[in-house]
């Protein structure tokens, strides 16, 4: 039976974690995502027996995740931009050791201490590695509170399928706003002895050790090649995106997360004025829908990429378009969400003006 609730994004994310059968959450308070830890602290342990622990820092939290993920349990942490920066070393270790875990970044404006208002300024950090070395996270970008819920379950699935950390890249507005959500049923917490996990060396098997240290260059290169092969497979199998009125579009707005919804409104306004605009929204930022954007580029006259940053995803859009059509950019920073009207104005300025 459908269970509909009106929930805040952060709380919906936390509720989804409980329902997904999460075994442990380690976190540290930071605005605008503290509600996740607060919500879990209420009764998550009572409901499912999951571990909920407030760590002394984001550094400690991510390393608790590293240890617990190494046992094959379903573990998760969440934070916001400055806290995610602190976690980068640990995330790099987790990626190299190929441990499954779910991370969420409810992004706030930066750089520095920045602001607690919404931003998409951590796209590069999430998608291009963030920490040291060549690694990738699977990055899911929700645009609704419903997707905050759905991507928790999907995130855990993908994390275990590929033994790779998965990051939900939300923003402060998605974390704070309330929307109607449909919750999935409580999943049981299950525990399987995985063939790589540190669960205690049984006499019947060799010891398991989790490490990212390989002193021999040929061994370290082998590990890197293995990781890159895995990322290629993820690129082949896990691309997710959404098209909005793209079939007959002459111009396309590209945007992820919350901004894509603002763009949808802008597209409707544009069509009222007779300008055929569509919206292309990557749901997975890694893997990035390169081919789908390339296909669009052979159909439409121009792309306007809109983001809450100085222009980050636009670099990937331009690589996909490969110079075939103009790719313009409009960005707001510092915690400002662009309005549909200003996006419409940019469409008219950048493209329609040329036609006249």
């Amino acid at each position, binding site marked *: 039976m459908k269970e509909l609730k009106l929930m805040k994004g952060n709380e919906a994310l936390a509720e989804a974690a409980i329902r997904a059968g999460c*075994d*442990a959450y*380690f976190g540290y308070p930071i605005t605008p995502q503290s509600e996740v830890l607060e919500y879990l602290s209420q009764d998550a342990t009572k409901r499912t027996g999951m*571990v909920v*622990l407030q*760590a*002394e*820092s984001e*550094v*400690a*939290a991510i*390393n*608790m*995740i*590293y*240890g*617990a*993920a*190494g*046992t094959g*349990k379903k*573990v998760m942490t969440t934070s916001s931009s400055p806290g995610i920066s602190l976690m980068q*070393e*640990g995330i790099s*270790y987790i990626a190299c050791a190929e441990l499954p875990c779910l991370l969420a970044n409810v992004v706030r404006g930066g750089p520095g201490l920045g602001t607690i208002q919404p931003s998409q300024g951590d796209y590069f950090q999430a998608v291009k590695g963030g920490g040291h070395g060549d690694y990738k996270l699977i990055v899911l970008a929700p645009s609704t509170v419903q997707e905050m819920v759905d991507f928790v379950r999907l995130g855990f699935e993908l994390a275990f399928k590929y033994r790779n950390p998965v990051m939900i890249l939300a923003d402060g507005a998605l974390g704070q706003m309330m929307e109607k959500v449909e919750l999935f049923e409580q999943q049981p917490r299950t525990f399987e002895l995985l063939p790589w*996990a*540190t*669960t*205690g*060396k*049984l*006499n019947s098997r060799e*010891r*398991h*050790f*989790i*490490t*990212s*240290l390989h002193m021999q260059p040929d061994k370290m290169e082998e590990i890197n090649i293995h990781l890159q092969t895995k990322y290629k497979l993820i690129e082949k199998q896990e691309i997710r995106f959404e098209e909005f009125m793209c079939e007959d579009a002459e111009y396309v707005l590209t945007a992820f997360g919350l901004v894509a919804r603002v763009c949808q409104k802008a597209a409707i306004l544009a069509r009222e004025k007779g300008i055929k605009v569509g919206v292309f929204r990557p749901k997975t930022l890694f893997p990035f829908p390169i081919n789908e954007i390339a296909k669009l580029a052979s159909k439409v006259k121009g792309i306007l990429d809109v983001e809450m940053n100085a222009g980050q995803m636009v670099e990937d859009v331009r690589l996909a378009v490969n110079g075939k059509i103009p790719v313009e950019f409009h960005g707001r920073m510092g915690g400002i969400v662009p309005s549909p009207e200003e996006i419409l104005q940019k469409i008219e300025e950048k493209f329609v003006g040329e036609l006249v």
Partner: protein
Amino acid sequence: MNDKKMIDEEKHFAEVIEQENICTNENLIYETPGTLTDNIMHYCPGCGHGVAHRILAEVIDELGIQEETIGVAPVGCSVFAYNYFNIDMTEAAHGRASAVATGIKRVLPEKYVFSYQGDGDLAAIGTGETIHTCNRGENILIVFINNGIYGMTGGQMAPTTLPGMKSTTSPYGRDVATMGNPLKITELVAMLPGTYYVTRTAVNTPVNVRKTKKAIMNSLKYQKEGKGLCFVEIVSNCPSNWKMTPVQSNEWLEKNMLPFYPLGDIKVPNEKEK
């Protein structure tokens, strides 16, 4: 000449046969613990790590908990500890071993969990994790090897380097006025309500080796009883970076390290509670 050679050979064979007779299972008084792998250790000759590893392995063997024990290796000389312990292990980022151990213990509370860390790892970069893990009273064992120097990176000053002690980054001796004082973190964690048993031992003499073994044994027994955090500091040596022979380093340890880091229990369990 020929006769003498024949007699020598006979004597030699007789000795070999006698040795073979002696080296039987019934006569064994010393063997490799099953919890150590056959991998050749990378530690320098005379280093205390090998002894400390063996003690841990012996205790795990004697308690019969090899299948139930998960260890955490640090960054430092013992970064490869997971190559030597025949148990499941995780290699942590620098300083984070106690947080990693917390993560493991919290999701597998029925297992025995220990972290094995050096002074730079535990008392410099990982101070925050050490204090908070101890303060939460995580039901784990922290083994802290203190040799007053960064061994793996080549002999730099550690948080535990003695006043006046020379290192590559305090080449004229540690000047506490500008470089700060050595940190007695063991005394510090003993003050925290979360720690159950805190002790300082050494592995420089057979007597101290036996005391260390007893401390580790007690700690793992307390862990089984769910008593909380046990913290064992092992004052150790670093012949290579102290620029001494192993024997000299043990003498130096006795003369210089132990007066500053006195051996003995710092916090013992309340007898009534036991």
